[in-house]
């Protein structure tokens, strides 16, 4: 393992409820200061991978049954989820997971617990409001009533407060308007650039993910099937067809032109 | 779903018992139930009758709480309404007992709808507390509505009469209660094959989306309360014919907890769960009685330990099931079934 690798996942298997195997020997690593993206179709196990890293798997009755995960050079098999956060690993979960009953400001306060025992100067909330002015307007409102996009901003805002060295981002573009996607990804890129924080980014929107990431992995059914620097991935034929929707030409094909597949046979005939 | 059973029509697929082994086992059970009184002594018949009553009521509560997601701690109070209805009808009018039972259910259903009204605004555990309140208020009515309920001393119920014979011993009552309960259980199972049952479950899972999908919350929440209380009322009616005295203290609050515990231990939201839970929770204290009998030669004051131990076991069962087997006995039975597959009726 290279010294500048902040996260190293080595051949892990993950099983839910002691029965459902989701990851089958997955390996990937994130170099310090880099943004690495992890792509894959629904159910491939992307979120599971992130949860395995942040130790949140146990909450869902999942377990890493073999392989190892090292964060900052240390094995995390025994770490508690909150302990990891306090060591600088922040997971922005899928589906935002903001505290609905708390106000926007209290949501940010909650994230200050990530600083406990780290001797860091707390980040002023202003920084968050600066990136996301809309949150400032609604700072006293209950977060549960925010629109989807606003909630996503809040979720990323919490990560800013926590001053992590590695952020796991699970589908940050989900449900965001195109301009916000651009904005958020610019912010992600600039956070990465300004603070040098490393990121592991799970995305469905491959185009924007490739725009910010330095390196990419593609997974199917619990395994990595392809990886490489983004420049190389975007030229890969399969990636272009299945993730970017471009067949041959430079432009994506229209959704109107999609073939109707032959219907499957009826169940009872 | 069992593997290896080709279904030949939608009707067969939607039947209650979809496999041959299921049907055979059900037949065995029915015959067994029919013949049981030939071998049971009075004590076991007493228990069987009591179990039947509790199964009926627990099934009702399961419809409300397990399937519709409205937690109620008032089931015993609804039973009391049914029991008083039967008592009053028997004493004052002397209508036929089957009619009285139906009336008991109907009156309880009516009260149930009234108690259910807060459910439109009040949710979750807040609702559970509202039902506690309702049951204390009903208790107050039983104590103080002297002219009808005879206050604290309650009412003595004449025996049910069927074709001129008073049904006084447990064999007779058994043959009345068990079929009634079986019918009620069947009704509940049917309910969940139709749109009404689906609406209940939808309300449990996500009430506001259910409304947008065309399910009137007002109607179905109240309907669920009505059905559940109808079951309770009818069970309470049987209770009245069984114990033959109805007083305000006959249906204490812990009895309501008992039913909630029963459906949890049995398995919430499955018909089988309601049955298993009621049977199990009624019989466990009695089994402890036998354990104590066996222990008493060894342990001199085993007798005095019985009641605290029962209390502890009652609590421990609830905790144990919730922590280790949250889906209840029904899930265990399912697992056994899967394990034995088609045994012993291999095709």
């Amino acid at each position: 393992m290279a010294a500048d690798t902040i996260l190293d996942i080595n051949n892990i298997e993950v099983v839910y409820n002691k029965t459902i195997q989701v990851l089958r020997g997955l390996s990937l690593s994130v170099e310090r200061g880099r943004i690495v993206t992890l792509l894959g179709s629904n159910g491939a196990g992307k979120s599971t991978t992130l949860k395995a890293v942040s130790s949140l798997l146990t909450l869902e009755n999942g377990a890493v049954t073999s392989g190892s995960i090292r964060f900052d050079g240390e094995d995390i098999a025994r770490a508690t989820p909150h302990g990891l956060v306090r060591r600088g690993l922040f997971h922005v979960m899928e589906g935002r997971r903001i505290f609905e009953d708390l106000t926007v400001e209290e949501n940010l306060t909650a994230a200050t617990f990530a600083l406990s025992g780290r001797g860091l100067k707390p980040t002023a909330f202003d920084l968050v409001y600066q990136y996301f002015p809309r949150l400032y307007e609604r700072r006293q409102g209950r977060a549960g009533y925010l629109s989807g996009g606003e909630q996503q901003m809040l979720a990323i805002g919490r990560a800013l407060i926590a001053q992590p060295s590695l952020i796991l981002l699970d589908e940050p573009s989900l449900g965001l308007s195109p301009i916000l996607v651009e904005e958020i990804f610019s912010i992600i890129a600039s956070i990465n650039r300004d603070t040098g924080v490393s990121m592991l980014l799970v995305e469905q929107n491959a185009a924007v993910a490739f725009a910010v990431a330095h390196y990419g992995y593609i997974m199917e059914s619990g395994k990595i099937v392809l990886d490489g620097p983004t420049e190389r991935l975007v030229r890969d034929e399969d990636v272009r067809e299945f993730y970017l929707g471009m067949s041959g030409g430079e432009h994506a094909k229209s959704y109107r032109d999609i073939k109707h597949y032959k219907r499957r046979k009826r169940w009872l005939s | 779903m069992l593997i290896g059973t080709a279904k030949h029509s939608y009707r067969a697929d939607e039947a209650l018992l979809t496999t041959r082994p299921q049907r055979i086992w059900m037949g065995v059970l029915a015959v067994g139930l029919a013949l049981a009184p030939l071998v049971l002594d009075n004590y076991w018949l007493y228990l069987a009758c009591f179990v039947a009553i509790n199964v009926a009521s627990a099934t009702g509560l399961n419809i409300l709480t397990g399937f519709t997601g409205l937690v109620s701690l008032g089931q015993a109070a609804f039973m009391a309404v049914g029991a008083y209805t039967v008592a009053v009808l028997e004493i004052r009018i002397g209508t036929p007992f089957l009619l009285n039972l139906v009336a008991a259910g109907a009156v309880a259903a009516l009260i149930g709808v009234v108690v259910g009204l807060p459910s439109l605004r009040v949710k979750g555990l807040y609702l559970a507390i509202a039902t506690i309140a309702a049951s204390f208020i009903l208790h107050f009515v039983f104590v103080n509505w002297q002219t009808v309920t005879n206050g604290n001393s309650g009412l003595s119920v004449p025996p049910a009469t069927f074709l001129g014979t008073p049904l006084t011993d447990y064999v007779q009552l058994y043959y009345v209660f068990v079929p009634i309960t079986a019918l009620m259980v069947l009704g509940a199972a049917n309910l969940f094959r139709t749109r009404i049952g689906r609406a209940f479950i939808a309300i449990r899972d996500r009430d506001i989306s259910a409304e947008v999908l065309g399910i009137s919350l007002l109607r179905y929440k109240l309907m669920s309360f009505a059905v559940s209380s109808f079951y309770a009322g009818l069970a309470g009616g049987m209770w009245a014919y069984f114990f033959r005295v109805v007083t305000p203290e006959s249906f204490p609050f812990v009895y309501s907890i008992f039913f909630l515990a029963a459906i949890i231990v049995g398995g919430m939201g499955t018909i089988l769960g309601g049955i298993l839970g009621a049977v199990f929770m009624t019989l466990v204290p009695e089994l402890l009685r036998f354990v104590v009998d066996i222990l008493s030669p060894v342990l001199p004051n085993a007798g005095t330990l019985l009641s605290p131990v029962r209390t502890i076991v009652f609590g421990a069962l609830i905790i144990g099931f919730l922590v280790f087997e949250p889906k209840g006995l029904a899930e265990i039975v399912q697992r056994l079934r899967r394990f034995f597959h088609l045994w012993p009726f291999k095709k």
Partner: protein
Amino acid sequence: ADEIVIGGSIPLTGVFAFAGVGVEAGMQDYIKIVNEAGGIAGRKLRLAYEDTGYKVDASVAAFNKLTSQETINLYYGDSTGFAKTINPEIDRMGSILMAGASFATELNDPKAFPHQFMAGPDYSEMTGILLEYIAKEKPGAKIVLVNSDTEFGRDPIAATKARAKELGLEVVEEIITPPTAVDVSTEVLKLRRARPDYTIFHGYVLAPLPEFMTQAKQLGLETKFMGTFWSMDSSIWDKVGEVADGFMGVMPYRYYYDEAEDAPMLKRIREMRPTYQSTPYMQGFLTAMLFAEAAKRTLEAGKDLTGANLKAALNSIQDFDTGGLIGMPISIPGNSIPVGRIYQYNAAAKKMEPASDWISVQE
């Protein structure tokens, strides 16, 4: 020879465990005495009982279990609720004579409860005895009734008020407490406003009586607190201490430590049990004695042990000597034994002391 079995649904645990434990001991002791003397007509007595936790359905289950296991002709029940619930079944079976822990007024009706009786006065007769005493001590006295809001507690209210009127006593306030009340401040304030000469509690064992009495004392209230049988055990009051001093009540039996000349049975009890035995013990003991007597008379008359025969034999008891358990000879024409005596608690001596002679309210 075969045995005569006394069945029992007894609350060895639960809220009234204190009663059940005493009852069981009392019954066992009397049974021992009978058996040591050769039994009844050569047949030994035996107590077959189950704990009920003072829950009616558990009592009924115990009854059904015991009666389906063996022939039982005598039965001890644990509560008013049970007595009423099982009554139709007992009448139907026709083979059992039953008594129990309940002195409910309602049960004192040979027509409605032909196969039951109680080994003492019913609750109304108890308060009647108290009122008679009050009328004699302080004619025209003002009385407050404090009752728990339960079937047990409300039982004698109507009869007490009627009897008070007959005796020229004035009931100035009725206080009903919720069954689980712990804090009785408002009730005490009511009491203070009513300023009664006597306060009669019924429907409690102990709580909330001590708190009532403590606060009343703090307020300087001059009222005499009185209770009925179930709150008259002296060991319970021993634990309360100083405030308990002067508490009075009606008691159908003598106390364990009563060394009266005419009470050989108490001496016998003290020999069998060197430490204090509770009032429920006495009740159990006497009930067993009456069961045995009824069985003896039935068998001596050459009759079968049926409910009706046993009850008839019991009702034939006239001027019967209880060995001093009760300080006067008793007769049982109906379902109760309406005699009793007023005792007063002496905190210094830790004893209940007689405050009146034996009073009978038999018509």
